[in-house]
């Protein structure tokens, strides 16, 4: 890993921490908040790519583990990594990796804006929603004993917000590939 990759990973982790400053929205029927930090999954994957993006999230998880309150609402500590949202948090890492892989496949610098946007949106939905929900819901259902049905139904509440995040992230990623392309230089 080059020093530049190391710095990009750290700076993106700092952006994820920054997203955590936006207060989370708590829902009554499911012990998982709506948080801006899940947008970081889409941003990281689409902007710095699969490997560096996933490492940025791992760095954030390390900070959570040693007790730094870097999750939304000032939460942190090992307990969270055993709590009801842990599946989503692990999902962030895998989801970023998948978002990055899909984006690296679909998006080229030479494409038109619309194609790039579509590519980023598809990548964000597959990695940032599909993969994250898969791991998040599975953990929530089986480990907290909520049951798969309730977990799936409850998670539907995240869909509108997450689609909006995918939209914003795609537009931002497109602006960045125009203004400061990083994705093509894979790590």
């Amino acid at each position, binding site marked *: 890993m080059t020093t530049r990759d190391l710095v990009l990973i750290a700076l993106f982790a700092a952006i994820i921490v920054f997203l955590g400053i936006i207060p989370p929205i708590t829902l009554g029927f499911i012990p998982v908040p709506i948080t801006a930090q899940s947008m970081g999954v889409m941003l990281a994957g689409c902007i710095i790519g699969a490997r560096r993006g996933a490492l940025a999230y791992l760095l954030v998880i390390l900070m959570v583990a040693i007790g730094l309150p870097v999750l939304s609402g000032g939460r942190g500590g090992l307990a969270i990594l055993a709590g009801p949202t842990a599946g989503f948090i692990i999902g962030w890492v895998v989801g970023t990796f998948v978002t990055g892989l899909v984006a690296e496949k679909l998006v080229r610098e030479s494409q038109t804006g619309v194609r790039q946007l579509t590519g980023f949106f598809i990548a964000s939905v597959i990695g940032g929603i599909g993969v994250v929900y898969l791991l998040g819901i599975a953990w929530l259902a089986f480990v907290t004993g909520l049951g798969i049905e309730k977990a799936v139904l409850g998670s539907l509440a995240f869909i509108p917000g997450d689609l909006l995040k995918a939209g914003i992230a795609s537009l931002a990623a497109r*602006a960045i590939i*125009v*203004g*400061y392309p990083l994705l093509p230089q894979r790590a």
Partner: protein
Amino acid sequence: MDIRFADCSVRFGDKTALHPLTLTLTERRIGIIGLNGSGKTTFARLINGLVKPSGGHVLVGGLDTVADEKRVFGKAGFIFQNPQHQLIMPIVEEDIAFGLKNRGLKTTEITERTATILARFGISHLARRRVHELSGGETQLVAMASVLVTEPDILILDEPTNQLDLKNRALVASTIESLEQQVLVISHDLSLVEDFERVLLFDGGRLVADGTPGEVIARYRELAAC
């Protein structure tokens, strides 16, 4: 346009960045000088409402920067100390057009006005360039174009010749000279303000000299020598 400070002061937490000040500025070319941290940027930001007075009022062309915030923003354009922080869209011409789009102009008019301002600054060749790849001098000119395209009555420039070579300095200086607007310039580069009508000297958050460039610059040199 009249810029009036009425017993205006600024505090950040328990630090006083600007002590109470009463002053009227009407001249077309005003220089602002002083040591690092003396309050120059704070003073200038009061004028377009980016900083709100902790006490007193600031009136720009009769409008209060607090009560009429929205209209004051349109009157006074501001070029930041680090203008690369001011460019928001990734491509030069998109950034310049952005300010206009938002005023609800038609696409043809936006294109036309963007092209005109780029030509006027002699930077038409930069239209499709990435904002983040511009050199220091280019960034300064693009920031000026992106602010002036919205036609403010007052233009405030915070250290516009930072990092620029002699040639670009001369270019920025002559561009400033050619503006019809009222212009305020903050600078450590004293040659930039030596032909101005009025120069203000700040020290420790206080206005300590106010007059012609000759006398105020001499005063500043004394102050810096201690």
